[in-house]
């Protein structure tokens, strides 16, 4: 592929060539290639319509190549230029075992997402949101609480049946037990 692009640099002295790749939906309008030289200088260049770039008159030493596109994230590249002015080694700056071919083919690592994505509508996340919790709690209050409430007449009636039946737990009769006994009656 690179050979086809005609970017084979040969042994031009002090020249760093490469090509920046972008996905089809992103253009090169903000693409900038920044080279931090070992002398502490910052060299910049842009790309042509195909994404190709070239630095000329690069001194020897260890340089850092920083490709930039506003919408993409590229890894930084560590370049070693020998005394003849030829790039002797190009590797990712954070992992020098990842050696890159010369001329450089720079591919984005990911798209730069500057905004948080809203998650698609999801019932569970809605329920967990403040609105959802409010609704669930109120529904609970509306539907379940009335059923826990006991009619006073029922209560008397129930106490009487308990006295008559002489159930073992009768003395402890309270709301909780009442509620528990209410449920089977409702099913009638």
């Amino acid at each position, binding site marked *: 592929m690179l050979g086809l692009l005609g970017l084979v640099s040969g042994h031009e002295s002090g020249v760093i060539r490469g090509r920046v790749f972008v996905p089809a939906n992103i253009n090169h309008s903000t693409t900038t290639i*920044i080279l931090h030289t070992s002398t502490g200088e910052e060299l910049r260049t842009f790309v042509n319509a195909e994404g190709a770039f070239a630095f000329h008159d690069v001194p020897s030493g260890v340089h850092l190549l920083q490709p930039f596109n506003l919408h993409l994230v590229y890894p930084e590249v560590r370049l070693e230029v020998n005394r003849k002015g030829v790039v002797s080694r190009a590797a990712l700056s954070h992992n020098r075992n990842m050696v890159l071919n010369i001329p450089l083919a720079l591919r984005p690592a990911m798209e730069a997402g500057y905004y948080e994505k809203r998650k698609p509508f999801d019932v569970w996340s809605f329920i967990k949101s403040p609105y959802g919790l409010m609704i669930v709690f109120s529904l609970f209050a509306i539907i379940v609480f009335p059923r826990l409430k006991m009619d006073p007449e029922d209560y008397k009636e129930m106490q009487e049946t308990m006295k008559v039946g002489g159930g073992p737990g009768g003395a402890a009769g309270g709301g909780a037990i009442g509620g528990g006994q209410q449920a089977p009656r409702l099913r009638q």
Partner: protein
Amino acid sequence: MHVQIFLAIAVFALVAAARFEDQAGAYDWYKQHIGIVSSAQFHPSKPRVCVTTEQSVVACLNLRDGSIAWRKPLQALGAAPSVAYVESLNSLVTASGGYLHAFDLEGGLKWQRKLPTQTAALVAEVQGKATEKVSGAILAVQAGAVQVLDAADASQLSKPHQLKGLAKDNVVTANGYLVAYNTGSKSVLLASAASFVAGDAAAEVAVEAPLGLSASAAGGPAGFAAISDDGSSLCVLQLGGTGDAAFSCQRLDALVPDLSATSPLGRKLIATSAGFVLVGGDAGAAVLAAGDGQLKLLRFFAAATAASAEATVGDDAAVGLVEGPSGDKLRLLVVSVSSGEVLQEEDFPAAALRRAAHGAPLQPSLVALGAFRKKDKSWGVRALVVFRCGLTALLQQGVVVWSRDESLATIGQTLFVDLPANGTALKGDAGAKADINTRIRYQVLGAKVQLKLNTPAEAAELLELRGLLSDKNTPTRDVNGFRKLLLALTGTGALTALHNGDGRVLWSRTFPPDAVPMRLLQWRSYHDITHAPEVLLLREAHPGAYVAAINAHTGEELWKQPLPHGVSRVVPVPAPLIEGSAVQSVYLLVDHTPAPGAVPVVTLLPDTQASQAHFASSQRSPYLFWEGSQPGTLQGFSLEAGAAGAGIAARLAWQVALPDSVLALATRDPTEPIQSSVKVLSDRTIKYKYLNPNLLFVATGLANGAALDGDDSTAVTAHLVDTVTGRVLYSQSHAGARGPVTAVVSENLVLYHFRDVESGRFVACAMELYDATPGREFSVLDYLFNPNSTQPVSSLTPTPIEAVSQSYFSRIVPTGLAVTRTEQGITAKQLLVITNTDQVYALDRRWVDPRRPKKQKLTQDEMEEGLTPYQDTLPFSPLSFATLDKQVLGLRGVAVEPTRLESTCLMFVHGVDLFYTRLAPAKGFDSLEDDFNYALLIAALVALSVGAVVMNYMTKQAQLAWKWK
């Protein structure tokens, strides 16, 4: 693949205040600019005009609406590039900042070459006779070195030439020759451009002019012309003819009698194919024809204020002259260069331009003329007119098609001030009130977007409605202090007040070119709401230095006072002077020339009895310090107040010589609010922050741009210097490191970046400083009830410092650092890193906490302190960019202003572009968000109430039915 994994690890989702895409534009605005246009060229086939600007931007603008089709910043911002349009290749070749660039007209870079030095260079296409093969050859001339390059691929067409004689102030191309001369000199050097192309030994000819020549000169097919140094004559040199080249000077009062009466300042020459056009500032233009070595006046246009370069209109070669604006008209004349006849004449309404310039005087400085075919096959013209105030407008067929106010691309200093309390001062600016239906619609759309049930059109409508309904654009102050007036001092000499809600201009005041102020400072603010705050403008250059107070709400000048000396720096006195309900800022104006043994002249402003007394009684007097005249030295001065009007006596107190060159200096903002002077660790022990207000951070190392020695033994050393005594309190060294260094000091944290030579990567080093005095006791009860229990700290008896530091690799390459600032300083701070890609990255302070433990599993105590496990690289997440998905081209400054809500601060970023946003470094913990959706809340409540009623009814029915059983 490894890259993805690495980045996935590096990108933490723990981002404090990331925005959703539908919130874009709710708290922020962004304005793209290009700068003050210095040259313009109409696109040969597309409806575009391609320009270069004084801010070193190359751009093409859309002719229909003035929008930016593309733009590229060149290396050195701040100087207009030399530019040549190579017609045969449709490319623009620029020379700027030590580089040559060739762009195609679609924004692609064709090639780039380095020039020998950083100085200004001239680039020109070689104009030769048709028989010579010089098409597409360009000359780059810099400091006497001439390169001949093929514009297509930058291949060298001949060996570079060195011509010492060309290293002169002015180099002009004229009819195949290079003409070089020094301003005011009579000796002129001629060199044939074609001989450079041919690779011949350059034939240089020295010609003596009868008069010294000024910098106003032009060269073209008719030869070379320059106005004499005394402004009396016009000297012409005909080139390319037979015989010896010789100057002939003609007196201007004889040649153009009407022009000579006016001031010779601002005269400009423009070369045409038949002669020259002489523009006399704003006093008319003369179209001159050349023949027989003499110039002849074809016609004088008394009302013309600017002229364009030659353009072809149909079959005629013509220039565009602009007359006016006078009254409500701006007139464009198309004048034949060979006959002086007016070929076309069009009037344009000036009122729209005046409005767009916000009242600044309209003086055209550049005109570019372009021709186009109308529908009836006749030729029409359009003109791009650039006014001195920065307004750029396209005129065509009697209308101002569009205009851009580019003065804001030159903002140098900014200041946030309060808006008026009631709308009296800025009334009439309020937006239209929206009706209730719109509000309901807005809420419904908001709910849909939040639940992701919207269509794209609805999302767009929501954004539009948000702008309409928001009160962020009201020109009065609000309870939370979100709405502010943003004052900006521009390079075009205007003080402009922007509303921070949407960046619109509320008022603007323009100063004449010889009184352009350079500094904008706070002056006087009032606690009562009836007074407008006052700001101070300062012009530093002497003669002409002055200070002036401006009413910040109206732009009215309150007073102006000339200064007897220049000002090289302004030092604010930390505590302002309180005068009744007014808070008066006090400044020290320092006039200092960097010479050995020079003592600075210091005056107090305002220089009154009260301010002198205030200065004398202030708890600690400020100390001046700066880099000495020798590289790597620092000097400190002590100051002593005198009587009113007597100035301040400055005395050299100390001098420090550092081993290397100084790479960065940083001090803490003395007004920075600090909530607590102690840090409580999880084991309830207390550490005392080292908060010496006289702390200076100095980084030294190998000078930027200097080559490394073979042994790579370079190091960056960080020093902490006390500015009272000059004592070096602490220093630490990073072996194998070099600059550039950027640094910021905030509270007890110093953060600085440098470069690691071996890996080539940038390193951020955080240093936290603690007071290590043994036996300090502090209890919460003291803090509450005994404010005098704090121990005084003196620079003269320095306390021991405990410095905890840690270094991290950084993917962000900084060019500057700032820090967020909130009202009380309680909110966790974010460090604002200005990147070399013209963005601002908000880095949470916890990421650079030097105490991050070097293990993955944290103990309960460490988690309680909010520590995160150490990693060698700082996290990089695009969500943390405070500038969001915007690039602020040519970023020069960041201004941060606290609001009255502790959680929130305002940030304004300016360069060629402008960006404003609201920052909440620890999320909005003390307020509901502006776009809190009340509709959803009300809907939920209504649904619940209805549910309750229905359920109540149903329960009753059920009980009744059951009882009947």
